[in-house]
């Protein structure tokens, strides 16, 4: 019992939020893409690209003489830009050339792995860790950070965490309360109906994929510039797929995905905590949890799992 209490500490929940952040950002991106009708398996690859270029731009910023905070911010922006660019490959191949969206996504993931490894080797002459770079560590919000319990959990986190948490209600708002969101959703459910009222299906799908690029890119930036300050080859380590699982598990809704990401983040944090406490429960089963839960959700045991009806189907006029 004591051990249980010692594990479920404030630090654990703070840790949960941090673990969930990259997942949340990537999941939100995945939601916009899929809601507009384009399946995006490439979240993993986009995050990796984001992580790499965040590190690279931050490094270059420092080399150029920028103060550390500016370098790191530039890195975060760079991550979003390059995430966008890579996602555009997926967009063009899937929307313009109507290729199989899953195949395209898988190819992007391989491309990202290759590209980041290639550049890491070429620029830094290493295949493991990059040099350390200016990052964006915890930035406590004055006043709020000293609130007991809630303070350390919500208000003493790296800036990207704040962005991630704010992004959820913003995404929900855009998706469900604005005309743009209505159209995006229409295009993913019944593109022909949208077309007949004059909506440009292709343009909105490009937008959906672009948003996934920007958001997943930022999620990747958190990996290299959030808690760490380096890039490691393959550092996304499957998080893009967990984000995808969160999208499905959260039923393609920002709040649902948030819940799923927090759950998955909690599993991750608990598993580390247990290991540190020397507990003998195999951490592997906790690490397995997000994937098992998603399988269960898919088989319909937790209500129907309905993706947007036209998701994955290239649109032809």
């Amino acid at each position, binding site marked *: 019992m004591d051990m249980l209490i010692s594990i479920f500490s404030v630090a654990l929940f703070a840790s949960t939020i941090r673990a969930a952040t990259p997942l949340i950002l990537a999941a939100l991106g995945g939601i916009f893409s899929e809601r507009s009708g384009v399946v995006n398996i490439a979240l993993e690859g986009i995050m990796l690209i984001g992580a790499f270029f965040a590190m690279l731009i931050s490094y270059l910023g420092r080399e150029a003489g920028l103060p550390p905070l500016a370098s790191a911010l530039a890195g975060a922006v760079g991550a979003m830009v390059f995430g966008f660019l890579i996602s555009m490959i997926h967009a063009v191949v899937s929307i313009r050339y109507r290729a199989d969206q899953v195949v395209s996504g898988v190819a992007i993931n391989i491309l990202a792995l290759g590209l980041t490894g290639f550049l890491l080797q070429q620029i830094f002459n290493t295949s493991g860790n990059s040099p350390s770079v200016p990052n964006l560590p915890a930035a406590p919000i004055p006043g709020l950070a000293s609130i007991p319990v809630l303070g350390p959990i919500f208000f003493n986190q790296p800036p990207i965490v704040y962005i991630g948490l704010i992004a959820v209600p913003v995404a929900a708002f855009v998706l469900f309360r604005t*005309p743009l969101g209505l159209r995006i959703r*229409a295009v993913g*459910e*019944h593109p022909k109906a*949208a*077309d007949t*009222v*004059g909506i440009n299906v292709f343009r909105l799908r490009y937008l959906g994929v672009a948003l996934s690029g920007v958001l997943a890119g930022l999620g990747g930036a958190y990996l290299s510039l959030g808690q760490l300050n380096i890039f490691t080859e393959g550092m996304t380590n499957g998080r893009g797929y967990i984000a995808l699982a969160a999208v499905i598990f959260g039923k393609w809704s920002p709040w649902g995905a948030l819940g799923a990401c927090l759950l998955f983040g909690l599993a991750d944090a608990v598993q580390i905590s247990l290991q540190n406490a020397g507990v003998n429960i195999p951490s592997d089963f906790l690490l397995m949890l997000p994937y098992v839960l998603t399988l269960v959700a898919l088989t319909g045991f937790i209500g129907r799992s309905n993706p947007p*009806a036209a998701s994955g189907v290239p649109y032809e006029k």
Partner: protein
Amino acid sequence: MSDRVPVIEMRDITKVFPGVIANDHINLAAYEGEVLGLLGENGAGKSVLMSILYGLYEPTEGQIFVRGKPVEITEPRAAIELGIGMVHQHFMLVPPFTVAENIILGSEPRSNLGTLDTAAAVQKIKDLSEQYGLDVDPYAKIEDISVGMAQRVEILKTMYRGAQVLILDEPTAVLTPQEIRGLFKIMRTLTKSGFPVIFISHKLKELMEICDSVTVIRRGKMIGSIDIAEATPQILASMMVGRDVVLQVDKGTGQPKDVVLDVNNLQATDHSGLPVLNGVSFQVRAGEIVGIAGVAGNGQSELIEVITGLHKAKAGSVNLNGQIITNHPAKDIIAKGIATIPEDRHHRGLVLDFSIADNGVLGSHDQPPFARWIRRAFGAIKTYADKIIKEFDVRTPNQEVLVKNLSGGNQQKVIIAREMGRAPDLLIAAQPTRGVDVGAIEFIHKRIIEQRDAGKAVLVISNELDEVMGLSDRILVMFHGEIVGELPAAEATEDELGLYMAGAKRNTPEQGGEH
């Protein structure tokens, strides 16, 4: 007519697609306050004409005038801006969205912050609703509402965008009688406010009831336009089906023997729960050809799919040679002796990327002589393919050619050869000559008659009245998921069948099931 300017006028509209003239110099004029009926069978060209008006196609020739001014309509947005409101036959509604969301999609009202001003939308919808008697629940989801309400939502969509003319494409196909009354009431309200309404339908009774004039189209050509005061169902029916001369095969008379197929009060619903078969009952005997006539969409497709085990029957029974086969697996039904020429050869009948040889054994591929255990016997398959090609005169360099590279007529021949080659007890031929050139049509008809003469039971289902009349010994007519008419072929005339097909007449008892 008077010298009023029509609200919408289509002059000399011609639309040519590769290989077919869909519209051939058609004239149409819709005046204020009037309901103009557009009558024609499926494939006559009505939908193409309306798609041109709505900007989904551009005419090869001809012009469109709105209130006397020539216009070019290049896309739906342009049509909407001109006040052309189209309610499609297949609803263009997003199922998980609410009524309000569907109505405003693309023309959303915004609040100052740029958000969706749902309140303003709902208010405007309520106002329009009241003004035109279009009762809807703005907050209900499309997937939960009735078909009648869905249709009102589609109409409101056009009103919301300031439509000045309303086009309804086969609106009553999916409505109950009560809902049809409701729709007519709405139409009268609209015309009283000055709107012209174009009412596209193949249902004579309804056209007679609601229209002020009717324009009839057949095979892409305009047959004529007639005031309702001067029209009768008989006149409309004969204009619709016409008297085109088609090669009539000398079919002789059948010698019907025992009952092979016995269908009893068959009922079925489609995937959204709507009834499609409302109690179908009929029999087919060995040595006779029974033809089912009807306009497409009255349950014929579903009937075939239920009989062949590809769709569930909710009630009723299907018996083959005395054995119950209702809801049995397709493989079983094939084994028991039913062969089907499906109505859509690309969807059901062929694997387009397979060769002629492989398609020739589709369905018998795992039985001797075409296979021993799991090993395919290519010698036997080859011989059979040669036989098919020779006997049915399939034009192809060889049997390895992929079926997708054959012409439609030759593809059909492969299917027919295959199905007849099974020596079934019952042969079902659905749209057997659809998309087939004239030369092959006669050939196919001859073969079907041969089957009858060899003692098989044959069921022919076709939208082409000439075909049904030419082949059948006995003709049934399907309307709204029921058999409404049964006539010996020798006594049936086109006019009379047209009346049955359009729901204006029946000579069979009413069955169970919904109407």
